[in-house]
């Protein structure tokens, strides 16, 4: 049987979406379109580490004519110029996965200086119009809070932010954080803002495939971390072990007074 959170499972998920008649759109298209398709999927990738996994997914999608959105962190491990350009060449949207409030230790003005510098680095490589915050469960800051004051995305010529600018009442949000699609305490900062009251829950990718095949939701956003999906059994085992250890820490964080 095909292992969950493997390359094969991911290809099956994409095929299920296509077969059920979903139109795949990018975050940029979602935010800039005057009229949206009746039934669509937005696949959003947060490239936190293992950038080569992202490239593998990008190729799998491109083979199927699917365009998705890749948010890449500006750390040396993931800021790989050639790879970023390849993602765009394959027809995908690339955005900045920002964590500047964390790196500035909560200083909003310093965070914006850093954000400005990093965004310009990305824009020298590709066309960036949307951004998405990186949630580090071990820092006391929520990077989205850098938009709480006078600064807006428009100041940077951006269309919007993947958590803050989407209507999650209309678009159902599913995330693979914690290697489960089910919402819960493992998604420490990975939650939508606002009134999105989710009516359906799934745990495994196979359950998600069933949900999409039955078109039980018309519009959905899937957050997929390429590093969580493995191309081999050995990688899957290593990633599951790492996730299990991380999940223990996350449960511990939830139990803090």
């Amino acid at each position, binding site marked *: 049987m095909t292992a969950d959170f493997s390359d094969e499972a991911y290809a099956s998920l994409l095929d299920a979406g296509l077969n059920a008649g979903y139109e795949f759109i990018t975050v940029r298209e979602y935010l800039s379109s005057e009229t949206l398709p009746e039934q669509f999927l937005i696949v959003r990738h947060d490239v936190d580490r293992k950038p080569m996994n992202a490239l593998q997914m990008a190729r799998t999608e491109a083979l199927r004519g699917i365009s998705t959105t890749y948010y890449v962190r500006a750390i040396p491990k993931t*800021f*790989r*110029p*050639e790879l970023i350009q390849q993602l765009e060449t394959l027809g995908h949207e690339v955005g900045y996965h920002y964590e500047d409030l964390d790196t500035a230790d909560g200083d909003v003005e310093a965070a914006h200086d850093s954000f400005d*510098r990093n965004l*310009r*680095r990305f824009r*020298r*490589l590709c066309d960036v119009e949307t951004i998405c915050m990186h949630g580090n469960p071990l820092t006391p800051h929520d990077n989205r809070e850098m938009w709480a004051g006078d600064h807006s995305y428009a100041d940077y010529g951006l269309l919007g932010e993947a958590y803050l600018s989407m209507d999650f009442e209309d678009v159902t949000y599913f995330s693979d954080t914690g290697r489960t699609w089910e919402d819960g305490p493992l998604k420490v900062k990975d939650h939508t803002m606002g009134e999105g009251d989710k009516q359906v829950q799934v745990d495994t990718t196979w359950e998600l495939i069933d949900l999409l095949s039955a078109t039980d939701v018309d519009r959905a956003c899937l957050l997929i971390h390429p590093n969580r999906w493995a191309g081999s059994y050995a990688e899957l085992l290593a990633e599951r072990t790492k996730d299990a250890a991380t999940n223990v820490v996350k449960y511990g964080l939830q139990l803090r007074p």
Partner: protein
Amino acid sequence: MIDDHSFALCLTHDVDRPYKTYHAAYYALRDRDPEHLRSLLPGTNSFWTFDRIMEIEDELGVRSAFYFLSEQDLFRERPPREWVTKDGWRLFGGRYSVDDRRIVDLIHELDAGGWEVGLHGSYESSTDPDRLADEKRTIERVLDEPIVGGRQHYLKLSIPKTWHHHADLGLKYDTSLGSSDDYGFQNGYSIQRPFDDEFVVFPLTIMELALPNVETDIEGAWEECERLLEEAADNGAVMTILWHPRFFSELDFPNYAELYGRIIERAQELGGWVGPPGEYYAHLDHPEPPITAKQMG
């Protein structure tokens, strides 16, 4: 001169030492400042200034050339007797491999952002065309496109032999003609054509090392730079400057980054064209090659 500009300022950087290694201990002792030792910690390296250089130039709307070195490794490629000599360490110690992932990523980022990537010929390559060819191939393999020009390490030239080697390898220009302890237009205001053909030499006007007392008297150093810029503007010169990336580290080399920014801004105020030599070269017209007997016959 390019478009309506009255003179040109070509910006270059020789990537000699992107990592502060044994220098950390040396500077800590020399300056009696343990802050230098921080560069030995993972993730901190004050000689890695490329982000800062790109920011400075991006904000000023200019680009420059970065010349990469594929030098011999002291322990793997040099005889053991050199391992304990000062020259051995100075010439071959603490270098880098062009195949390091960070260097590969840097080369791609520079290239994608519009910066020129060129060849910094190694110490012994000025008289060794096979070695120079190998170094050129190494960098072009990473860059994935032909290199246009560069500079020899330590400005080491054997004239005209080294330039013949450059031209034979398909390089279009060289920027090694100059001095590390003097600055100015001693080699003329114009580019040179040693073979009266398309191969061009950009004389080096300023290497930052040659400027007087930059760390203690930036205004004095600035006066010299401004004087040279005005001389360039008055004479329609092609002025070429070299700022090694590590000189953008405020900890190690205070004031040099500010001086560099001032030079660019003043050149722009004076109506100069500012950019990398490769881009300047692309705007040049070249002498017609002489008609050979074979072509006539």
